[in-house]
């Protein structure tokens, strides 16, 4: 099973709302990632968790708050977002980080619309 599951698939939220995106994998992977993708653009790296610790934050605004409760789960908490934050948010995982020879598995994404 090489599946990364993301919920919800679609989310509409107001600029004053607080919501969360969830990601789950049961492959025993120890690295998990959040990417943001705007239409017709490549995915942009946001955060990397390695062994449940935040290892990379690509200068993401604090209105995005990642959380890794355990090795199988990754959340992205959203608060006070702006309309320009509307995008496809992709979660990914890999066995032991982006090491040589590893494979990164992506979920199908969560479509976020901020109104």
């Amino acid at each position, binding site marked *: 099973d090489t599946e*990364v599951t993301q919920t919800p698939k679609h989310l509409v939220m107001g600029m004053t709302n607080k919501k969360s995106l969830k990601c789950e994998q049961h492959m025993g992977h120890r*690295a998990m*990632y959040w990417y943001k993708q705007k239409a017709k653009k*490549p*995915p*942009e*790296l946001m955060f*990397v968790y*390695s062994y449940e610790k935040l*290892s*990379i934050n690509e200068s993401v605004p604090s209105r995005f708050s990642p959380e890794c409760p355990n090795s199988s789960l990754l959340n992205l908490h959203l608060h006070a977002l702006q309309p320009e934050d509307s995008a*496809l948010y*992709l979660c*990914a995982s890999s066995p032991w*980080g*982006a*090491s*040589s*020879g*590893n*494979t*990164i*598995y*992506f*979920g*199908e*994404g969560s*479509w976020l619309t901020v109104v």
Partner: protein
Amino acid sequence: LAKTTQPISMDSYEGQEVNITCSHNNIATNDYITWYQQFPSQGPRFIIQGYKTKVTNEVASLFIPADRKSSTLSLPRVSLSDTAVYYCLFLNRDDKIIFGKGTRLHILP
């Protein structure tokens, strides 16, 4: 960080072989070259990965010359369903997996 350069778009016809080349002049010794396919509104899907020479799997082949400054993804006998964006990127030890602009492949009937 190693940077990749790919053609922005390509057109081909059903049944043809398609080759997409990626340039990566500053590839590091530990970098593995990996290709992903992405359909609209879906997450990227792993296609193939290699370090040097040639790698082949059930869907594609990857050719990497000895200097490793470029790589070519080869898709045999494409069909309409191969219309997608194809990304080449690197996996190395620093956990940063950065996507380039990708190549939009359009297969025509």
